[in-house]
């Protein structure tokens, strides 16, 4: 596939944003469909890139600053681009049909998509930084304009945390350039081969951990997350939790593990500890929440902890697990919030004490609750659903390196089932309040995004290669540690050993790079 396809991935949302503004005021119902189409275009293209990998694109932009439009796709970025496109489509479709100020709302959603996809496509640190910063603006506006009662506070807090994150990344990227003995350069290939002084490496990694740790987030940098997740409109949370936060994980993997492997390896016990603490802290806090959105925010925090654990161990298997966790969590959290969005739209609340009996077959929301149950099961890592293979890979991959952190995370994973059951028991079962239960049932149109996500979560659980296969080669390349029991069986990783499908259906990194 020609390399300009990579530009098309960015042009689609950009063009869509402009087109939305041209929709006349009496045809506002077209806006949502148009926005969804603008997001679906890149999805089709990204899937095309999977089958026919495009060559990298190098265009000069601002040569004096070292800013180049270097775009490329490999086994790490491609699955995340697909995920982002997918989540954007479903988030847009999850918005209510009577969304207020739809032109601006959906344009900002597309702008977010543009930023995330730009960051994932970037093969240049400065371009990545630009895209990373770009995401901040639309999300802040989306929260500030369409958020809940405390939207102003939530937006300001998100802005402050994200600004610190952005500044830290800016400092890190500049440090990459300044401390490069071979002269300032931002290209990933140059950074990969650069020999930074040891002190600079430590400072840069610290800044990267701050920048991406805030974005993920991970304890103790999570202060913005529960507040923002509880105040932002549900489609925005779907995008934020499902796609935007993955930019942080991707950054850690690309910059931390990829460019500063020795410091990463040295600091990884502490990073693993932060991951394990996040997992436990998130799960325990989720148990204590009395609002579904906040519960899911902390649940998300816990899952990010598992992801960080996988990254810190940096074995081929754990990195593969981390990528799988990004994909699985992206889909699961989007599904969770799609269901929560439906519950909130119908009942008008997400307060757990005010909800009960929603499984009621005639007057409740049985279909939505069934999907929520499945999503909670997936989040809790029940086999057969997307969460299981991802978590299993992370645990199996990390066990040999950080057994204690893995054990703690395993226990945290057990707590996931506690809050999942607790939530469902309170909200789904019990008596439906006769006085309150006066809402209409969900229509098929409203259910469709969540249904599609449900099918994907099941499909990924039944065919885990869809989660793990993409990144197999990159994970092996990036791995800092060997996998003891794998090394004995030769160079094969479990994914390739188990499935010839991977080789058939998914491109390896070398294929992507060379073609």
């Amino acid at each position: 596939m020609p390399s300009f396809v990579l530009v098309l991935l960015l042009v689609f949302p950009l063009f869509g944003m402009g087109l939305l503004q041209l929709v006349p005021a009496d045809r506002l119902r077209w806006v949502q469909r148009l926005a969804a189409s603008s997001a679906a275009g890149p999805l089709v293209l990204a899937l095309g890139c999977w089958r026919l990998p495009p060559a990298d694109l190098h265009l000069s932009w601002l040569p004096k600053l070292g800013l180049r439009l270097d775009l490329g796709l490999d086994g790490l970025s491609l699955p995340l681009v697909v995920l982002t496109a997918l989540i954007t489509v479903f988030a847009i479709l999850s918005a209510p049909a009577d969304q207020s100020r739809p032109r601006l709302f959906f344009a900002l959603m597309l702008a977010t998509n543009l930023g995330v996809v730009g960051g994932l496509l970037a093969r240049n640190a400065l371009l990545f930084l630009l895209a990373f910063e770009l995401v901040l603006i639309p999300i802040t506006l989306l929260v500030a304009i369409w958020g809940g009662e405390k939207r102003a506070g939530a937006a300001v807090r998100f802005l402050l945390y994200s600004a610190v994150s952005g500044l830290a990344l800016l400092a890190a990227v500049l440090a990459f350039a300044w401390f490069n003995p071979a002269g300032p350069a931002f290209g990933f290939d140059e950074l990969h081969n650069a020999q930074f002084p040891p002190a600079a490496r430590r400072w840069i990694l610290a800044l990267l951990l701050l920048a991406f740790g805030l974005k993920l987030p991970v304890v103790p940098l999570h202060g913005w997350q529960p507040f923002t997740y509880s105040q932002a409109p549900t489609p925005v949370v779907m995008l934020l939790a499902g796609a935007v936060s993955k930019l942080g994980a991707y950054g850690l993997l690309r910059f931390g593990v990829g460019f500063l492997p020795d410091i990463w390896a040295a600091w990884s016990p502490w990073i693993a500890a932060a991951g394990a603490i996040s997992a436990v802290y998130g799960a325990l806090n989720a148990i204590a929440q009395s609002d579904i959105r906040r519960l899911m925010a902390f649940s998300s925090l816990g899952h990010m902890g598992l992801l960080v654990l996988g990254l810190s161990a940096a074995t081929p298997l754990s990195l593969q697990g981390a990528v799988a966790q990004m994909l699985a969590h992206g889909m699961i959290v989007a599904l969770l919030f799609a269901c929560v969005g439906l519950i909130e739209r119908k009942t008008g609340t997400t307060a757990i004490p005010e909800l009960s009996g929603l499984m009621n077959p005639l007057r409740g929301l049985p279909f939505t609750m069934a999907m929520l149950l499945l999503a909670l099961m997936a989040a809790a890592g029940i086999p057969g659903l997307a969460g299981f293979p991802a978590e299993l890979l992370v645990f199996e991959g990390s066990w040999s390196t950080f057994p204690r952190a893995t054990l703690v995370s395993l226990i945290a994973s057990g707590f996931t089932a506690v809050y999942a059951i607790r939530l469902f028991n309170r909200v789904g079962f019990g008596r439906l309040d006769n006085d309150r239960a006066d809402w209409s049932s969900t229509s098929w149109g409203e259910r469709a995004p969540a249904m599609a996500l449900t099918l994907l979560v099941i499909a990924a659980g039944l065919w885990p290669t869809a989660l793990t296969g993409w990144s197999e080669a990159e994970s092996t390349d990036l791995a800092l540690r060997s996998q003891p029991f794998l090394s004995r069986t030769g160079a094969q990783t479990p994914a390739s050993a188990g499935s010839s499908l991977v080789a058939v259906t998914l491109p390896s990194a070398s294929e992507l790079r060379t073609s």
Partner: protein
Amino acid sequence: MTSPIATAPEPLTEPLIPPSTHRYADVIHRLEAGGSMLPDTPENLMQIIGIYKAYAVPMDFYWRDLLYIAERVFLDPLPAFKYFPSQEYLDRPNSYAGDDSKLRIWRGTATAHPELLAFMAKGETTNMPKLLHHLWHDRINMEFAEACMDAMFWHQGMGGRFYDYLECDAYKANADKAIKAYFKGNPLMLGLYALFPEMFLEQVRKMSYYANLGLFWEVMAPVFFEMSDIYDEGGFKGVPDAMDFLVNGIFAVAGRPIYHHVFIGGECFEIIPKSEGFTWLYEAALPYVEAVFYRTAPFRGTKSYNAQAGQVPSEQADFHYGILYADVFPVGSAGIPPTLLMQDMLHFLPPYLTELYAKHKRGEGDILNQLGVTFQRSMYNVTSAVIQALRCALLYPLDDADPEHLMANRRFFEAQMDRFLRPEARLPQIQTQDYR
């Protein structure tokens, strides 16, 4: 039938007794004026009459099958076909309908209702053998009727002499004869009977309650059919009229004998002979209202109760899971008796009710809930009729001039309303049309 209910007294400038201070004072004053617990609105009248009609058609099946089980299936150890009453029972003339009835309540036919027969043939699906309809659950569901029978059997001690009779020697001797005749030539069952006679006897008692409930509903079905016909002709002017019709009906058939006969090999075994003098009002109607409307037991599937945590009363008399207290919202859960009853009634709704439901809440989507609430309203009206009938039988006319008599009536009504003070009671809800 003459009306034992006096017409409501004219509003007096000076009431003979002071107003009630009860929480349900409004309802009590309405009862004292000859009204029902259900407010007198045209929509309420339409709802209750419509649902009586929809209830009476499956009830016509219930009573026939209950008697079929009590009299023919009897102690069959594998009663796989007990919900398939024989043609004889479908043709069995109702004692209160048809040309040959001694007391004709309904002007229609004495055999099974034509709508019932049409439904049994085709169901919701299509014409197919009875067994397939049964297995597909496309049928009249007897589970609700059996749950009502179980409630009556289990609660016992609700007045009347019926249950005590089931413990007496005469009953045991009759039952023994029937058991031995039924299992004649079956050494296995006779051997088991010799080993566990009480177990068999208990089953026969249960069969006697099948007969009891069957005979009770044999009366109610034509009453409801007639009410529907009168309404269709524009006959009832309000909810009190409908209640009065019920009260009159209750008194007209109060003396109907309650018995249990079993037919084994062409011979009739009178386990409870008519000569024992059990009558409809005291041995069937009142225990039925108490057991089914007030008490029952928590229906499986509707809600879980924790007896250890004191969520279930220790006294059976305090049970409050009947239709007057029921939370109708869980209706729709698969297989639970209330859902099955609503499903049965759904097939026979008059068009005016279908139209009404389509306009409210989720329309077609929650029609089972809506008709459940209607059923609850209608049963408050039936209970009102029973309360008025009891007041009529035991106390004083509503237009009595003696203040002491009126106070006695007041105390009776207040005592009845006390049963609805517990929070589960739906009496406050049915006072408005918002509850659907």
